[in-house]
């Protein structure tokens, strides 16, 4: 791929890969079990901040700081969000949203010497040099995550998560502890979020509370998963590439805020038109061409 496209396009693809990882992370929890998380930037932020602080302030090399960051994300997220799993529906979304806002406030106030306060942390060690290497790393990560999740979702565990999204009581009625299942889903989601967040921090080299714990960021993640197609692996990737490329293609034509206006409008219309996402649209197009009825769950 690097041979065929411009370097600028590669950069866009890198962004899309990371967004795809975040969207897949969101989807494992929210797209499958139906527990909508409005706090995913919270998890991603923990991962990003952990590795940034460890490598920048304590000199831990990235090969240790990234795994540590992932563990911290899983642990921190678990401690905080486990009680939230008792709550259903909109309330779950709100608790997670509150956590994100809380984190936004706390990062700036608590130990600004470590977190860099509002200004954030800059000069985080880069793992790669140049667009090609960055692209290879990002694509490898994305495909690795996608493959891992795909394998996991093919297991009975994946089926059970789906089932929770359809009827949690019936899953319990089948003798399964849904709390344990949800916790596991959450851990997997946190793992992917922590991983994505940590690598992303090393890729951008900078992070700031306003860029991470932010409703716009949350919006991008959720919209990527949803307009791509929730509950699938390919959907969030599809959605992430669609959104990021839409934004970049709009940049030369509409350089300013108009871009977000158009972009948000497109997202809203797409979502309203087909809540199952682009994957479903592509599917129905293909079905129409082929004229058959193919079971399409990926």
């Amino acid at each position, binding site marked *: 791929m690097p041979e065929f496209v411009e370097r600028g396009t590669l950069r866009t693809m890198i962004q899309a890969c990371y967004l795809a990882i975040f969207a897949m992370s969101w989807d494992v929890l929210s797209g499958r079990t139906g527990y909508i998380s409005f706090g995913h930037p919270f998890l991603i932020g923990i991962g990003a901040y952990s590795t940034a602080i460890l490598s920048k302030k304590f000199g831990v090399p990235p090969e240790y700081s990234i795994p540590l960051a992932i563990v911290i994300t899983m642990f921190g997220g678990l401690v905080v969000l486990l009680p939230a799993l008792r709550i259903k529906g909109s309330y779950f*979304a*709100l608790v997670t949203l509150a956590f994100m806002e809380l984190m936004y*406030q706390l990062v700036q106030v608590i130990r600004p010497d470590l977190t860099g306060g509002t200004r954030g942390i800059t000069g985080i060690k880069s793992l790669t040099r140049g667009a090609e290497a960055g692209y290879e790393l990002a694509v490898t990560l994305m495909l690795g995550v996608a493959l891992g999740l795909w394998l996991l979702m093919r297991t009975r565990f994946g089926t059970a998560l789906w089932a929770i999204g359809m009827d949690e009581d019936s899953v319990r009625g089948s003798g399964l502890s849904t709390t344990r299942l949800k916790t596991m889903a959450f851990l997997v989601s946190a793992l992917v979020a922590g991983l994505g967040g940590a690598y992303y921090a090393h890729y951008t080299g900078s992070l700031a509370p306003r860029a991470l714990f932010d409703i716009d960021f949350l*919006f991008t993640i959720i919209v990527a998963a949803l307009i791509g197609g929730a509950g699938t692996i390919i959907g969030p990737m599809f959605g992430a590439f669609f959104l990021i490329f839409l934004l970049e293609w709009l940049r030369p034509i509409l350089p300013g805020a108009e871009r*977000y206006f158009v972009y*948000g409008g497109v997202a*809203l219309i797409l*979502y309203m038109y087909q*809540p199952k996402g682009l994957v479903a649209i592509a599917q129905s197009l293909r079905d129409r061409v082929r004229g058959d009825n193919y079971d399409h769950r990926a």
Partner: protein
Amino acid sequence: MTQILIQGMLLSGLYALIAMGFMLIFSIGRTLNLAYGAYLLVGGYVYFWLCQQMGLPQIVGFAGAVTAGVLMGLLKHRLIVKTLNGDHVAIEISTLILAVVLQAGVVLLFGDSSKILLPIVPGVVTVAGAQVTFNILTATLISWAVIIGLYLYISRTHTGRAMQAVSMDAKGAALSGVDPDRINLITWGISGGLGALGGVFFASYTQLYPGMWVAPLIISVAVVIVGGIGSILGTLVVAHIVGFMEVGVSSWSPELRGVFTMILIVAVLVLRPQGLFGREETH
């Protein structure tokens, strides 16, 4: 102490007004309207445009803001809520997207920079060492008037009672001759109007800027979650808890202002999901 009391009362009145419209939709439409903050955004900017940029009288500004809010509410119900047919997750997410789109729209029309509204009623008086502007005093008094009016409307009029009825039992309401759909539409309109009005006051108290919809949304969420669904009294009480807490924390450690509100939301949701004053869901 007196200062905290006075300032707490004033801020809380404003918060109660802001939260009221959100509560209506949450308890009657059973919908989490994440674009609620956008009513405040649009209300504030419409008022700014009419009064401060066009130089029209204040009453025109208020009328324009409230009309814009009501229209937005009605359109949102028709175009999003009805289209998505009660799918709560889809509505929440669509409203979130809508709020972000509206924010981009405001940036497009008015730019990024903050704007301050002229005081609606200029002047200031010092009470017990606390400065009280006539502006915020007016805002608080009007808040109270609107809240009382809303309370009377809901408890005394046919439409108001029908709104309560729909929130408690939609089927029961339908077979009493109430069209839940129409009541929902009216509720969305009122909510939009209240939000826009709250937006004018909120902006005249603070500032106008494209991201201003987030803070009031979070406050509304806090108030309604902690107060519990469907309780005007709960909304009022909790608006005061949040307001006093903010003022109290501000005078103790101002940089922690928002932290406690978030902790309150989380704690209440985890420990008592129906809210401090709410009832257990009947269904």
